[in-house]
Structures are given as C-alpha cells and as structure tokens.
C-alpha cells in the first residue's frame, strides 16, 4: 500500500471502528446510566465529561441523552474528517502547503504588536478590575463552591481574603508589567495563569460565563507573539500567533452558529422562539421588539447569518469594517434585548486583534508615549 492510500485508509478505519464501538457498547451504556445501572467506570466518565447529567436526567427522558450522544459522534466524525483531509492535503499537495504557509505566516510589525500589547493587557485589567471585591463577596457563599475540573485537579480551594488579595495583585500586577514591557514573555504567561485562576474561581459556582472566552484564548496565545518579538531584531515579525488568535475568535462564532443549527435546526431562529426569549429576558426594549413581527422574524436570522459568516473576515480583509461593525451591533443588541453581557463587551474588545495598529505608532511617538517600545 502506498503512502497516499495509507493516509486515507487509516483515518477511515479508525472513524468506522469508533462508530461501531459506539453503536455496540457506548450507546447501550447511556440507557443503563439513565436508570442508574451502568458500570462504575462509565458513571465516573459521565461525571467527568457531563456533570449536568444528574440534573438533566430529572427533566429529560432517555431519548434526549441518546440524541446528545449521537451528536457527539456526528461532530467527532465530521471534525475528524476535516482534520484528516487537511493532513492528507498537507502531505500530498505542494500547492496546499504553500497556501497553508501563506495563511499562517502573515508578517506583522513590532509596532502593531506593541500597541496590541498595551491595549490587550489594559483590557484584561479593565474586565476584572473588580475581581478582588467580587472574590471577597463570594467568600460568603463558599458553601456553594464546587471547583471546575481544572481547579479540582490542582486541589485549589476557595481563597481566604488575604489569598484573594494576593491573587488580584498577581493578576493586575503581571498585566501592568506587560503593559510597561517588563519581561513581557514571563509576565504574560503569569497573567494568563492568574486570569484562568480568577475565572476558574468565579465559575466554580456551577455557572460559567462565556463572555470572557475570546480574551482568555488570546491571553493563552499572546505570550507566543511576544516571544516572536523577542527573538528577532527585525521590525517585521512572523505573526502566526496573532493569526491563531483571530482564527480562534472566528471559530467561536462559527461554532455558536453550528451549535444552534445542530440542536434546534431552523426552529432555533423562528419568530416564536425569538419572541419567547424576549419575554423571558424581560427588558424594556425587548418587550417593545416582541410586538413587531417583522423584527422578530428578521433579527434571529440575521444574528445566525452574522455568526456563521464572521469567519469570512480571515479570508476577505476588505470585509473587516463591515463584519466588525456588524459584531458590535450584534453584542449591543444582545445586551439591550436580553441584558446579557455589557455595552463594552469582552467579545467586542477582542476585535482589536483584527486591526493593524501600526498607524497609531507615529502619533504615539509624537505624544512621547514610551509604552510602545
């Protein structure tokens, strides 16, 4: 068997084997788990992967969970096929390799990264400027503390007041040091670690706020961008980490759209669903909007279209202004209609990564702003 055939054959066999294994063993185990009759290892796996199972099984029948499990299999199959195809093309097509390298290896200027560094780490301070007071307040409710998996694995309990203060100083301090370009790689890693710790503590009360995710992903990747700056003396830098941040943000929107279509289908954007959500969230503007049939028909479809097509920003830079304006409108509307998020939403702050800030550097120099070193 030649190399090309192996690259096709192996993933296909693996995916088929998994589907067979799921149909013959895992699917029946879900029915058993629903009636509390599954083997211990499977119950443990469910607690680990799907902690809401105990709550949801009181509300839904077994078909709900079987359909969810089927979804996992479908999604896994589709994602595996996409990854395998990309891998196959990388190994077999020189043209594809060149295009892939072109996509990832976009150069960016050190000035752009310097402006982004200042804006991004100031944004991180801004989104959690009140983290210390919130950590202290939540201490009263520590009886409800149920650490997220990562904190559970690290055996991190809810911090006492002094520990909360140290965490906040560590977080804000490391962000500020990156802003002032003091050992930026080291302190950007530290600030990402503290950010995850702070978020982990807030999310350990059984409710996760998804609003900070793009900035968190960016915080995890940004140290690589600062490392790129450090390792070269040239003004131009290989900006692949910046590209990776923008890809992650675009993927988040795309996955949101897919999630809606896969779970609710076209009903998810129906006028009735939208109107019901407006009534449930009960905001003044939302209640006015709920009376308008045309808007209740158009808005959910437009929101889905925006989420599904945001990814175009990666391939058509000319659409940048239009897509980012649509994004700002989308988040402002979500805030006004559903009271979710804020007017200055962290997702909107993450749009800074789509802008080339090189143009700002000369102006900053005139103003003698030394942060942009």
């Amino acid at each position: 068997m030649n190399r090309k055939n192996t690259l096709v054959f192996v993933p296909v066999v693996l995916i088929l084997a998994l589907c067979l294994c799921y149909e013959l063993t895992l699917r029946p185990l879900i029915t058993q788990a629903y009636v509390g009759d599954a083997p211990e290892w499977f119950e443990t796996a469910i607690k680990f992967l799907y902690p809401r199972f105990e709550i949801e099984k009181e509300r839904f029948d077994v078909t709900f969970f079987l359909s969810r499990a089927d979804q996992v299999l479908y999604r896994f199959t589709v994602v595996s096929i996409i990854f395998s195809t990309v891998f196959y093309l990388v190994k077999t097509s020189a043209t594809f390799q060149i295009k892939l390298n072109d996509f990832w290896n976009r150069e960016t200027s050190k000035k752009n990264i310097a402006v982004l560094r200042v804006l991004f780490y100031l944004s991180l301070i801004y989104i959690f400027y009140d983290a210390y007071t919130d950590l202290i307040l939540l201490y009263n409710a520590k009886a409800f503390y149920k650490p997220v998996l990562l904190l559970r694995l690290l055996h991190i309990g809810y911090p006492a007041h002094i520990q909360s203060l140290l965490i906040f100083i560590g977080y804000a301090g490391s962000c500020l040091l990156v802003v002032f370009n003091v050992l930026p790689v080291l302190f950007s890693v530290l600030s990402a670690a503290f950010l995850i710790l702070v978020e982990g503590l807030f999310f350990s009360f059984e409710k996760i706020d998804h609003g900070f995710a793009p900035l968190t992903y960016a915080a995890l990747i940004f140290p690589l961008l600062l490392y790129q700056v450090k390792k070269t003396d040239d003004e131009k830098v290989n900006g692949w980490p910046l590209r990776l941040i923008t890809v992650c943000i675009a993927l988040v929107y795309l996955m949101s759209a897919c999630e809606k279509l896969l779970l609710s289908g076209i009903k998810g954007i129906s006028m009735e669903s939208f109107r019901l959500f407006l009534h449930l969230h009960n905001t003044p503007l939302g209640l006015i909007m709920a009376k308008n049939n045309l808007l209740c028909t158009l808005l959910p479809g437009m929101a889905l279209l925006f989420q599904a097509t945001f990814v175009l920003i990666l391939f058509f830079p000319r659409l940048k202004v239009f897509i980012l304006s649509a994004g700002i409108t989308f988040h402002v509307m979500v805030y006004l209609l559903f009271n979710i998020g804020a007017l200055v939403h962290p997702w909107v702050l993450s749009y800074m990564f789509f802008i080339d800030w090189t143009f700002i550097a000369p102006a900053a120099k005139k103003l003698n702003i030394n942060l942009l070193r």
Partner: protein
Amino acid sequence: MENKLKYFIITSTLILIILPFVLLTDLFPFLRFGMFAEPVKVEAQKEKFIVSYLINNKETEFNPKEAGIGDNTFYYLARNYYYRKEANNFLEKTANSVTIKTKEWRLKRIVFRDDKQLTADTSTVAMLIL
C-alpha cells in the same frame, strides 16, 4: 523543526478550542458556546425560583446579593439543587451564608403557564425550619 513546533501548537490549540463543541460540554478554560442554541420549549425556560424567609410571620423575598452572589448564579444554583433533589441542602447553605435571623426558609418554584409570564403556578418545593 521550528515549523513543525509551530504547526503542532496551532493544531493542539485548534483541537482544544473545538473539543468542547464536539463533546457538548465545557472543559474550562475551553468552553462550549451555545447561547440560545437549545430548543426553547423546555420547562426550565418557563420556570423561576425564589427564596424567601419569615420575619415576624411576614414573608420576605431573599436578595442573593446578601450572600455575595449574583442573582443569575444564585437561581441557577437553586435550579440545579432542586433537580438534584437537594433543595433542603440548598436552603441550609443559603442560611449559613448570611446573618439573617429567621426560623424559616422557603424555596419556591414558579412555573409560567404562558409565554408572556402573565399566569403562573407557585409551589413551595422546600422548607427549612431552624
């Protein structure tokens, strides 16, 4: 070598970002995004929980901020505890989180009969006598 490391980091990051979408669950710090993705006709979206306590035989609605917790999180917890059949445990934890001097705590569940929340059935689902 450097190129391989770069693509290894890119691939690993993308897998981690996509994994919650595939498994339909949050794997903090990597999250699943599904705002308004679930079908709307589920009971959880037509119900509300309220915690109250008695002072001088007068029922007062509890403000979650007194326990240092936001409204959304508090009632999300209430729903979780209720469906896990741990409503009394929830009231005990609430009572221990505040300094309110009361002898009776109640958890109430309101189920709306229509989409506009004009009519509803209210029932006390747990009661804690101290």
